[in-house]
């Protein structure tokens, strides 16, 4: 069982939460739940209604679509974040590739937290906008070069 500080240290390493203040992360750590998955155990299925996002602490998870592995996620990385924000059905299935230790942040608790902590909302916005900009610039670069 991790202490709040250890959870904070794990959360701050993740890009999504890196902008949030340490005290904000302590609040986030308080709603995060430690979960364990055995190898080959499913975290969620493609098309499922999202109810949480995950931060992998140890182990690994494969993201598959229509049976094909699209992405592998390892320690320090998050999964299920976009669905947490837009509420759209899961675009991938997620299955543990080894015994996996993760933090699970439930959607309802997460929104409750955001509603009381606008500083966390601002930090998340900054990170998400930066991600979008990066994606846009990655898309624009080849066209620009061409």
């Amino acid at each position, binding site marked *: 069982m991790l202490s709040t500080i*250890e959870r904070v240290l794990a959360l701050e390493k993740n890009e999504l939460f890196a902008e949030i*203040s*340490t005290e904000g992360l*302590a609040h986030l750590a308080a709603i995060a739940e430690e979960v364990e998955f055995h190898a080959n155990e499913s975290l969620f299925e493609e098309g499922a209604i999202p109810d949480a996002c995950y931060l992998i602490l140890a182990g690994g998870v494969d993201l598959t679509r229509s049976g094909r592995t699209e992405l592998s996620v390892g320690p320090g990385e998050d999964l299920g974040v976009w669905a947490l924000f837009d509420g759209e059905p899961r675009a991938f299935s997620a299955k543990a590739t080894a015994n996996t230790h993760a933090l699970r942040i439930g959607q309802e608790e997460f929104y409750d937290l955001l509603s*009381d902590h606008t500083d966390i909302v601002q930090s998340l916005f900054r990170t998400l906008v930066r991600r979008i900009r990066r994606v846009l610039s990655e898309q624009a670069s080849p066209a620009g070069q061409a």
Partner: protein
Amino acid sequence: MKRWLQKLLDIREGERATTFAMITYIFLIIAVLTMVKSVRQSLFLQKFGAASLPYVYLMIAAVAGTIATIYQRFAKNVPVHRLIVWTMGFVILNLLIFRLPVVAAWEPMAYVLYVWVAVYGILTTAQFWLLANEVYDPRQAKRLFAILGTGATLGGIAGGYITQYGAPVLGTENLLFVSVAMIVVCAALAIYVGRAEAGRIQDAARALRYKASAAEKTAGGFRLIWESRYLKLVMAVISISIIIATVVDNQFSFVVQEHIPDKDAKTAFFGQFFTWLGWIGFLTQFFVTGRLVRRFGIGVAMAILPVALFLGSGVFVLVPMLSTGVLVKIADGAFRYTTHKASLELLYLPIPVGVKNKTKTFIDVFTDRFSKGIAALLVLLVTSVLGFEYTALSWFMMGLALLWIVVTIFARREYVAAFRDSLMRRRIDEDELILSPTDAATVDAMAEALNRADDMRAARLLELISGVKSPVLVTPLVRLAQSQNPIVSIRALDLLALQDSGVPAVQLLGLLDRTDVEVVSRVVRILCSDGARLKPVRLGPYLADDRPVVRLGAVMAALRYGDDAAGDIVDPETLERFLTDSGGQEDRRQLDRLMASLLRALPPGPIATNYMQRFLNSDDPEVRLEAIRAAARLRPRELVEPLVRALADRRLRYRVRDALAAYGESVIGTLADYFQDRRTPRAVRFHIPRVLERIPCQRAVDVLVSVVSDPDESVRFAALRSLGRIRSQNGGLVYTHEVLQQKLREEIAKSYRYQDWQLGVSATDATALLRKTLAEKYWKATDRLFRLLAMQHPPDDVYAAARALRSPNPRIRANAVEYLDNILAPGDKRWVLGLVDDRPSRERIERALKELGDESTPWPALLERQAQGPDDWLAACALYTIWADRQTALFHLLDKADGSLADWEDRPLTKETLSALRVKRAATQSSHDTDR
């Protein structure tokens, strides 16, 4: 000695090379000026005599004006350091031509040289200060302009000595070669500064960038000055000061001539006097100017010369002697090239770079010569035309000095406003669309637009034309009423109901199948109306309809749109039975939603209140929202407390705030009870300020102020944020509570403490979390500090300054500090600027903490202080750091966990951390035992 000099000069790391180059640069410029001035003086007096001087003054005025105009056109798009190099090249070429035997022998050459020297002096010094303006930000300028001025003063002294000892050895004309060599060095220094400070010059351009109007882009310097109140005031200050300087000079010459008739004695007196004046100027510059400007700001620095001249002239009027005449000249000489010059250059700092480049040289050159011409005419008028004694000039000087002081006050005010504008310019202007669809042509155009509009545009257009009656609107409105977007449909139906005739009711019947009772009730209204009036007798079929939504819609239509008679049709007491009995097919949830929506139309009274209380406790958020909306409309007293408690629910909070605010001042007492009670759930307390800020009155302010010292940091922050919002939008409320001032001091002390701790923490991986937390704590404390300052100063400006302080552009940060320097009260200023100005210095923090009744805490003792402090999260971080950084001397703090965890009940994070660390230490101990 080195430390003393460092402290006195206050040139900081990273500024030294450039500042040394700038000091050398101005030193050489002024030394050359003094030398060529001596040469021109000597040549001119030898050839034409003093009687010809007035003519050459007139020539200077004419030539300088022309050159200023040409220069500012030439200069507008060229970087200043490049412009300097070109100017220097031109100057060198001129000097070499002047030295040619043929040219030197040309009779009018002495006139040309006289005018040339005057233009050289103004142009090169103006360019130097233009460069200094771009290289230094406002905070550096306050420290360093005085030092640059010292270089100028020393240059004048050195130039005098070079002339004195060089002319007999080299010959007067050959001093021009020495000047050429010095100017070559100046050009090299300008190139060096331009390259070394390219980044800062770009920052300056960005910080003061603004969207120039087309007129500004094309306008010349004079027009820009004419259209700017600030530039006109700057020009007025310069003009008055030059007029007075010229009159002082004349008066001084008269005094000396009268009291020292012998020619040699006079020469000796002048020589001695100017040498001493140079040294007085130097000492003033070195010891007074910088400190004065930093301590008292630009206002006092600008006012010191006119005040000194006013007093000096007053003394001279009373006692017209050589000593008092000398006193006036010393007052002028001591402050003109020191405090006055430094503050004048500061005045240019907030001006956008493009405007500055176009206007500064124009103002400096043109104003100087023009004002000297005016002064010459004034002297002639007083002494020759009116025939007064020269002592009468002092009366004029006193009058002018008073005018100067008044202009200075206005200029200082505009200076602060200019900085404020540069901070606020970052805001986005909002366009406001104002339409007035009153004439037929506009309504036709609207109808046409409605026919083509999508839902979003239609909703906006319908809002704009609400209340407009016209047959041409009916067709598009009927189409829009069918929209699936309820807002569009409702707005179209509302507008249709107002139309006098021609509404095709049959096309609306299909809308009765909708589930939205708001749409249905409006359709029923139209179907049961004759023109714009609802006819109650027509409601019968709809009240008996099989569809509950239609029955409810009919009830709502009767309640909302009917007159008293229509209201009687529906007995409120039978409503529930009516709705439940007649249908019977719907599930309870659906029925509750329908009944709750009826609250929108129910009149105030016990029935409505009962419904609201019942629905406010519903499981269904939709039903609760209906009850809250109804509470906002009907405002029953019984609902206040349930509403306050509902603030804890994030899904309802937004509407609850609206509802409570709708009660107005009558609800403040209850809110205050909940807010001040620390047992109230935090989620409720945290959101009460948002309600209070919507009821802007003195009572709301007082309640918010009462919690600014609350132990809960987030509640304090919420109260301050709401106080700021009230203050931004409402004048006339009182915020000058002692408690706010006390709180300000506390936040200042806290900010210094966090700065001290940040500097003190050893930088290792194990301390990373603590360092990050301290940096965040510092920013939060300064944020609260600025919110408190916003209670005493214009809030929007203070917030703009606070935002600017976080800018990556150092020039923008410096602008913010300079603005704060000018608006804060002296008592607060010292502390606040000490926090935000430049980099934190250990010495400054220690001194501030001592004065604030605290003391600097060294590493690792500060960990002990944090671990035992009141901040739960900081204490947890400190305890973790003690363990992670292996601070064994402080492990006794971790041992506290063994026996007294109950002491930490109100500090859950500290308690949890101690508990976790105890487990870790036990594991480590056990592993060591196993190893043994």
